[in-house]
């Protein structure tokens, strides 16, 4: 299987995506941003559609749209009570735009499919490198802000008291999230992106109670899903995203059952 260059590319790409999603995901779950992540994936679709329309690589359009909108959503929904409504409004607008750009561009059907459902086995070497660079950038920024981000995500009241600049942390994190959504869309597609950014981390928190350990476990769960998904996709010729989705849901369900079992004992 790995003698095929497109499969090698797919494995390298999915490994980096799994690592980034595992790390970012732990903070997405801690900061209750699962819904926003879902919305960003739709916005990513609109950005991808815009890129197709403008003749750009899809990833560039996705990065542009998701970054812009994540900051807008972040600023408009500082009050938590308002957040869901704001996210719904922004999401509706961007899905509409996505449909518009697709209808304006000539190559709509196949492009839309690859943006929505991912096209990991069609990834070129250049795209793999682009993905690697972006992943390293995200990792370095995360490393530099790790302590502040951790405090703000897991105890925002304590972080406020300790004098951490929460607005700066929040904006940088939203930008990193936007970048990760765009990057991860290459493999699972816009529709299912939130799977890798939420489920592995949401599962990890039932097995361990330290942030570093949660991150490691979330990365392992993402890797398991993406690697096994690619392998099964290769064997059966069914969509890779389907397998990744099913595997991550199985892991999450197992995590929930495990926590119930622990509680009852």
């Amino acid at each position, binding site marked *: 299987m790995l003698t095929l260059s497109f499969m090698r590319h797919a494995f390298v790409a999915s490994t980096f995506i799994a690592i980034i999603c595992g790390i970012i995901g732990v903070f997405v779950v*801690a900061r209750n941003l699962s819904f926003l992540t879902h919305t960003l994936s739709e916005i990513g679709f609109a950005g991808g559609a815009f890129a197709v329309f403008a003749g750009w690589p899809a990833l560039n359009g996705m990065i542009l749209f998701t970054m812009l909108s994540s900051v807008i959503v972040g600023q408009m929904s500082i009050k938590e009570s308002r957040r869901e409504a704001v996210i719904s409004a922004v999401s509706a607008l961007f899905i509409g735009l996505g449909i518009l750009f697709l209808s304006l561009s000539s190559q709509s059907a196949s492009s839309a499919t690859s943006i929505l459902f991912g096209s990991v086995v069609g990834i070129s070497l250049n795209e793999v490198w682009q993905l690697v660079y972006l992943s390293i950038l995200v990792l370095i920024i995360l*490393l*530099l802000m*790790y*302590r*502040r981000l*951790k*405090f703000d995500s*897991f*105890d*925002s*009241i*304590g*972080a*406020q*008291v*300790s004098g*951490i600049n929460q607005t700066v942390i929040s904006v940088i994190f939203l930008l990193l999230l936007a970048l990760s959504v765009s990057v991860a869309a290459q493999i699972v597609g816009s529709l299912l992106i939130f799977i890798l950014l939420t489920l592995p981390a949401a599962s990890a*928190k*039932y097995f361990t*109670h*330290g*942030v*570093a350990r*949660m991150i490691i476990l979330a990365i392992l769960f993402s890797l398991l899903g993406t690697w096994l998904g690619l392998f099964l996709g290769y064997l059966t010729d069914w969509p890779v995203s389907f397998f990744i989705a099913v595997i991550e849901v199985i892991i999450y369900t197992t995590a929930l059952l495990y926590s119930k079992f622990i509680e009852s004992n």
Partner: protein
Amino acid sequence: MAVVSVDDLTIAYGNHTVIDHLSFSINEGDFLVVVGENGVGKTTLVRSMLGFLKPKSGTITIPQSTRLGYVPQFRNIDEEYPLSIRDFVALNTKPRLLPWLTKSERNRVERMIRENNLTKIAERPLGLASGGEKQRAYLAQALLPNPNLLILDESTASLDNEMKYELLDLVTRFQQNGLSVMFITHDWDLAKQYGTRFLYLSPGSYSTGPINELPSPVKGDKK
């Protein structure tokens, strides 16, 4: 020496004056209890001392040598909260660029865990801890950067009697080692038992002095 001096402080929300020309100070080693009925501005006072609220007039002087620790009244910790008590306490390390804890930081965390009687439950998720254990974890986290003034905002409000005494005994032990304490409470009995000085806020006026001069609660003040 004063660790905080408040001088002629007035705080208002729009036209509504909450704190009116208030002056008091907290000295090294004081256990100041702040009592008064709901809505009289106790939490507003704390928020302004922490710099979250701008006073209308007057000054709050916090010398550079004062390091503030604060245990807030509310915290969003539900049953699903995943961090262990040890990891929760360790969140309040200095925001350095190094992602992992240094040896001395780890030692400091362990010391706080030990001194707040959390050793046996340090690995338990905070979300599953009892009310008293949670308060001790909040206390340990606030004390981690070694503050010399600790503000406790209604920390005993949701605890049963035994846990209240356990928590305040612990705080008193730190106070006897030089920590100044500002304890906001509704509970007159606790105030009398643990405080060395009081600040009594009532609508439009206030009084302060040694604890034996604390006036009896009037109607509206909870006993």
